[in-house]
């Protein structure tokens, strides 16, 4: 046995995860550490692999939707939307105006809910417990709105090929308006707790910088890309649904550090709130579902549809062979690309900063593993 010498150090490997609370799911990071400094980080994914894409090949198009709710469960509405968008493009279905507005209202409310989850868990990872409770409270209001509309709080099965499943109930509008009117003040509360707090700034400013070039190289999208200073938002740059009718800003950061990513999302909360307000004001009357044959059978074809999710670009590639089931379904999620940023950014930072950096990427593991 070797005698311990003064000043003698050795690199060692440590497993962070798969059951580590700050990995937001089941991500295993194999870290090579030099004391507290990370030398190398290697993400091991696949613990949540459920073969969703493959199962969808054995399901009819309407049956795929409840399954896809489980693909990205924090913003299930967007998963439904991207799948239905792709299916509608293959079959060339025109969605009624009211259905489009209802979809936008639900998508943006869901984006707010997702960003609130981010804000809560992110601050929790940094040691601030208070904002989490307030974020969950506001999210609860949104969940109640969803529940009274479609009957579920998480796996909605609301957006259908050609429209939405049900019209909003009577009490939806006053409650949604009340939420929209009070929400800006709530965001002010979160900001008062976090944005200028010196401890928060020390933990986030110039930590975990993902610069513009790295983002573009790794195919990052969404708030991560925007925090690096690239003004890119599919809602504006490749408009789908009726997003070209709403006025909203695209918040961007400058450096691409943890604080920028936090700030981009907080400002997006306000922008999404404004989109919901505009959509509620403009909501027309009319049908909520296009007239379609009962058995949805798209023609032979291939299409890729993409939308701006709260985690970046979410895409759905459907190959149809003319039957009632998709021949091949491929999903693209922002989280998968963002997980690959970890080995690029981690070397040289402290393990506590890795937690902050990983939380700021807002990765959700079912989306990585499918």
């Amino acid at each position, binding site marked *: 046995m070797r005698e311990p010498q003064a000043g003698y150090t050795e690199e060692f490997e440590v497993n962070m995860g798969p059951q580590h609370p700050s990995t937001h799911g089941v991500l295993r990071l194999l870290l090579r550490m030099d004391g507290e400094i990370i030398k190398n980080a290697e993400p091991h994914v696949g613990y949540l692999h459920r073969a969703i894409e493959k199962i969808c090949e054995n*399901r009819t198009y*309407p*049956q*795929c*939707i*409840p*399954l896809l709710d489980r693909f990205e469960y924090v913003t299930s509405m967007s998963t439904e939307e991207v799948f239905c968008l792709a299916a509608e493009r293959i079959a060339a279905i025109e969605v009624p105006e009211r259905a489009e507005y209802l979809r936008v209202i639900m998508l943006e409310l869901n984006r707010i809910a997702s960003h609130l989850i981010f804000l809560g868990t992110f601050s929790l990872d940094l040691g601030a417990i*208070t904002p989490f409770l*307030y974020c969950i*409270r506001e999210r*609860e*209001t949104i969940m*109640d*709105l969803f*529940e*009274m*509309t*479609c*009957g*579920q709080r998480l*796996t909605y*099965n609301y957006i259908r090929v050609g*429209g939405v*499943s*049900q*019209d909003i*109930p009577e*009490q939806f509008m006053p*409650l949604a308006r009340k*939420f929209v009117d*009070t929400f800006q003040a709530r965001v002010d*509360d979160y900001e*008062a*707790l976090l944005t*200028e*707090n*010196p*401890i928060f700034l020390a933990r986030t400013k110039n930590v975990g910088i993902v610069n513009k070039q790295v983002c573009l190289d790794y195919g990052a999208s969404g708030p991560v890309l925007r925090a690096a200073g690239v003004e890119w938002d599919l809602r504006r740059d490749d408009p789908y649904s009726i997003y070209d009718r709403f006025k909203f800003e695209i918040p961007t950061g400058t450096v691409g550090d943890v604080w920028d990513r936090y700030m981009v999302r907080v400002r997006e909360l306000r922008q999404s709130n404004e989109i919901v307000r505009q959509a509620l004001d403009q909501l027309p009357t009319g049908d*909520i*579902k296009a007239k*379609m*044959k*009962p*058995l949805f059978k798209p023609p032979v074809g291939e299409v890729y549809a993409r939308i701006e999710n709260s985690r970046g670009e979410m895409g759905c590639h459907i190959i149809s062979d003319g039957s009632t089931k998709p021949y091949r379904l491929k999903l693209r999620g922002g989280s998968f690309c963002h997980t690959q940023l970890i080995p690029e950014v981690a070397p040289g930072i402290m393990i506590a900063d890795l937690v902050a950096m990983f939380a700021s990427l807002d990765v959700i593991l079912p989306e990585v593993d499918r």
Partner: protein
Amino acid sequence: MTYDLPVLSGIKNLLIGLWVTLRHLFSHAVTLQYPTERWTMPERSRGVVVLLSNKETGELNCTACMLCAKACPCAAIMIERHRGDDKKWKIDSFSVDNSICCYCGLCEEACNFDAIALTPKYEFSTYDRPSLTYDIHRLQELGRDVDYTPRVKKAPAAAASATTATTEAALTPTPTAPKATTETPTNPSEKGESA
């Protein structure tokens, strides 16, 4: 090393944070004492699956057409049936496995006879898995007290030929759930909001 600025801004932000929490200290408590108090679920809430019966005759509305079993994405509905003497389908057994049901509501949408529905009932945990599979009697009992407005049959044009009318009705998807409950649902978010 100067401590002036970080200490001052630290104290300032501590006070800001305490002010935010202090304002919430005097708001209403939202805790619900669960076993004694219960949440009123929204009427569209999708909970346990039930079979609905005719209010007058008390017989099941189900015609064993198998549309719900075909619509189910996780094969939770098992139906066995046979042809009766009057050439109509008779149900031998009808069971729903609640342990694999994903509560998506596609069966309710596929049904054309107001026979199957998802209700806001939610307390049905058991100690073992087999008792989560509900047979036809249990499903019928659960559905006894569920209010629903029977579907109005399409009168014009459909009267021409009864067979095509039923197939058309069978194939038309119903966008809105024609359910009407007598009780007025309270808004849960009102409780959730701070005063």
